[in-house]
């Protein structure tokens, strides 16, 4: 019977699989060094089922990224994509690895491939943010405009659209006012959008951010710090922007876009 159903038996692996399983668990438990060691052992064992090899490279890339080993992550994702060409999530992850390594053009190429394969709002949002980091504000605005078209009620997409337009020096107040009118929700982050389209001033943001329950207020204040800093940068006043960016990088929750981008901006300020 074993011989008759031998395909499964032959396919089964020993040491390589045990290391692979350990690597997956280590990533789930946040133990990146153990994940790297385990996936490396799995790949070196030579008996890992071929179906699992791409997942081992991807798992190790995730662990490398968590340790800031960007180039190593890129190399593993190259191998993953060689084995799984056209894998959208793989391209996104390699884009992250390239961005981590400061290879923004390569990251842009990966995210452009993602958009070609899956032109959804997440893909445009990710490339828009990358292009914003490259200070290609005009093309970033084009991507955010796509997000707004796909998800008109997304206030943050409108916010990044107007922010990018302002920083590109391409804001048309009439277009901005029209975008504001299209938003049905008067809540946060509308005051920030109005600031960028010229309907309110940066000084008004502290008061605007103070409305709502205590949890909301803390988050709104951190966001206000970041976006007001961006307003100052758009007006070539980095001295006014810097302390606000420092506050945002200290006070924004680490899973907020504004936290990551405040840190990025600080790294680029002279």
């Amino acid at each position: 019977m074993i011989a008759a159903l031998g395909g499964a038996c032959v396919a089964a692996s020993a040491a390589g699989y045990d290391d692979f399983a350990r690597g997956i668990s280590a990533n789930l438990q946040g133990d990146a060094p153990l994940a790297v060691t385990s996936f490396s052992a799995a790949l070196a064992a030579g008996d890992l089922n071929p179906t699992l090899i791409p997942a081992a490279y991807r798992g190790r890339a995730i662990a490398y990224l968590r340790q800031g080993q960007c180039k190593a992550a890129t190399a593993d994702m190259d191998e993953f994509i060689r084995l799984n060409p056209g894998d959208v999530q793989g391209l996104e992850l390699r884009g992250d690895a390239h961005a981590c390594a400061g290879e923004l053009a390569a990251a842009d190429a990966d995210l452009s491939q993602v958009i070609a394969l899956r032109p959804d709002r997440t893909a445009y949002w990710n490339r828009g943010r990358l292009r914003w980091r490259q200070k290609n504000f005009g093309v970033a605005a084009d991507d955010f405009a796509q997000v707004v078209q796909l998800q008109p009620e997304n206030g943050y997409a409108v916010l990044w659209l107007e922010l990018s337009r302002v920083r590109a020096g391409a804001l048309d107040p009439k277009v901005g006012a029209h975008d504001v009118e299209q938003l049905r929700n008067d809540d946060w982050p509308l005051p920030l959008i109005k600031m960028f389209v010229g309907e309110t001033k940066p000084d008004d943001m502290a008061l605007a951010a103070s409305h709502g329950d205590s949890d909301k207020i803390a988050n709104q204040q951190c966001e206000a710090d970041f976006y007001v800093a961006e307003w100052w940068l758009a007006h070539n006043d980095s001295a006014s922007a810097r302390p606000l960016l420092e506050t945002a990088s200290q006070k924004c929750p680490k899973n907020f876009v504004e936290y990551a981008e405040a840190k990025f901006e600080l790294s680029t300020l002279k």
Partner: protein
Amino acid sequence: MRIRHRVALVLVLAGAVPCAAAENESCSLTRAASLNMATDPSGGQVVAMTIGGRTANLLIDTGGIDSMLTESFVDSLNLRVAPLPGRYVMMFGGYRLDRFAVGHDIDLGGLKAPYKEFIIMPNGHLPDGIDGTLAPDIMRAYDDEFDFAGAKLNLFLSNHCQTNMAYWTKSEHAEIPLEQDHFGHVSFPVTLDGKKIRATLDTGTARSVLNLEEAEDLFGFTENDPQLKTLEKTDNGHVYKYPFKSLDFSGVSVANPDLTLFSRRDEGIPRGGPELILGMGILRQLHMYIAYKEQALYVTAASTH
């Protein structure tokens, strides 16, 4: 609450290629399908189903009830959508699911059906690239073999008379009596650090979950025990970790099992639910065969052959 009493049509065999030897031995196992399992970044196991000529990547979810498709996948195929007549299901997280879609020209590893109903789930609850779930409504129509090391989900016809389903090994294996609830969820006894406890199989969960109160009762520790570490603070309370040494499946042991502990009190869950939910963190270390007719689970270590 059960959302559908039955699927519109259990997938019928058409074009499946059973093992050659199995065809000749009436009492032996007949493999109806052998599906490649991909591993998602969280360790979930994913198989491909063709619906209307398009591939849907489905997360294997033995903890589910009926198979589901995401809204975006349903939209992309422009499937016919209808309300679930007179019932709904509450998804984990409190989402009410009350619509289904009808997919046509179904193909699951060579098992074909002209149509199949899928519950529609909102987007954003599955990892990117996953289009839905494969749940017990389909899986319990067959015996299910999870060969994680071989990256295969094998489905066998259940009308056999073979008595040892651990066909992949001549080594020692465990045979554990199991129970099924009316949703098709499978539970069975295991031994955690010497204490008997009932476990429910849930391939749709990444990490295994133990109730804190059950653990306190069984092992005599309290929330103040220095070995009980807080992993995470959530809106519903704390998530804990305790250094358990061994989880035993009738002789097949998993060392240092990765178990997270939640408090029923914090979560507001009444007593009486599953004591231990076995997620992929532990399950991927096993090779399992679920024999529904025999009400038995056959287990070896994943790499045993």
